[in-house]
């Protein structure tokens, strides 16, 4: 478990290329009219990029289970904050208190 993993530089360059392409893509997609899907697409691309950075640049793919737990836990708590806050705002529109 303490074994350090030396990732071949080829991997880094590939990831870099994908990230750059995704940046281009996200700008292009923003100019298409997809309605509500615009936001979804932008976020999906951003999440994809972030996952690549985390897995490869930050070596999580090669790390201990504990690191995975910490990463996923962090994302999950962010989810709690966003989701439960939005339950209020989304359902306020349904009325009663106005």
């Amino acid at each position, binding site marked *: 478990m303490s074994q350090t993993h030396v990732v071949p530089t080829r991997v880094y360059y590939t990831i870099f290329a994908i990230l750059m392409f995704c940046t281009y893509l996200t700008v292009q997609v923003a100019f298409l009219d997809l309605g509500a899907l615009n936001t979804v697409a932008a976020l999906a691309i951003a999440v994809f990029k972030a996952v690549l950075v985390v897995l490869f640049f930050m070596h999580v793919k090669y790390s201990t289970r504990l690191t995975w737990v910490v990463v996923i836990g962090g994302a999950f708590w962010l989810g709690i904050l966003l989701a439960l806050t939005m339950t209020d705002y989304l359902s306020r529109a349904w009325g*009663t*208190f*106005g």
Partner: protein
Amino acid sequence: MWSGSPLFPEAASTIASRVDAVFFFLIGVAVFFSVLIAALILRFAIKYRRRAPDAIGEVITGGVLLETIWTAVPLAIVLISFGWGASVYFAMSRPPEETLDIYVVGKQWMWKFQHLDGQREINELHVPVGRAVKLTMTSEDVIHDFFVPAFRTKADVIPGRYTTIWFEPTKAGRYQLFCAEYCGTRHSGMIGQVVVMEPTDYQAWLSGGPQEGSLASRGEKLFSDLACNTCHRPDTQGRGPALDGLFGKTVTLQGGETVTVDEAYLRQSILTPAARITAGFQPIMPTFQGLVTEEQLLELVEYVKALRSR
């Protein structure tokens, strides 16, 4: 049954006894468990007190049955409590169809009330017994909170939007009104009274007060003073939509969504017209943010509401 006791507040609204019932249930639960735990602790502490300096306790590592019981029983109790509490809360937040509407504006540190017929009051609110009263409330500065213990009812009064609250008084009398959200230096002085009157007395009070015209008629005057009527005309010729019969209707917005017109929507349409554009119109309406006071805003809202009966 408890009214008059120094340990329990008077109950003077239809909802009060329902709240008290939940409260008594919870008292029962709390007393039962507190006494149980205290009794067990004391009993064990005495019965099993250390007899020899080196004595150790019996090794008991756990018990599945016991753990299950003391997870399940409290769970059942709290879920009952939740369900019961939620149903009463729901009733508190849904006003009945027919209500007597009154507007409330809170500011540091006073309560201002406006009746539809035009009476204004400060720190004192007159309402008749036996009618559901609905308050539409907002604040000029910070958050306040309208609290009448005898009615078991309370709601924050928030700047920038309307909140509502309703109650149906059951007994004539004078009841304490508190501001229950901390609002600055004289928070504890932001108190008043709700005067609940027999319907006939209330009628007399209504006709006795100073008359400055009804809320809606003051709104009508404002409507022309602010030149709203240059764009909003009763016919469809204006640059803005006709407002007759608008209240309560469903309006289609530019994006295709629909909204039901309520006080909050009217408020927003006047203060932030661009936020929601009615389909078929240009966003040319200027904002009236800062140009009208909260009270004037209420008058305008009430006027547009009144247009529904035309």
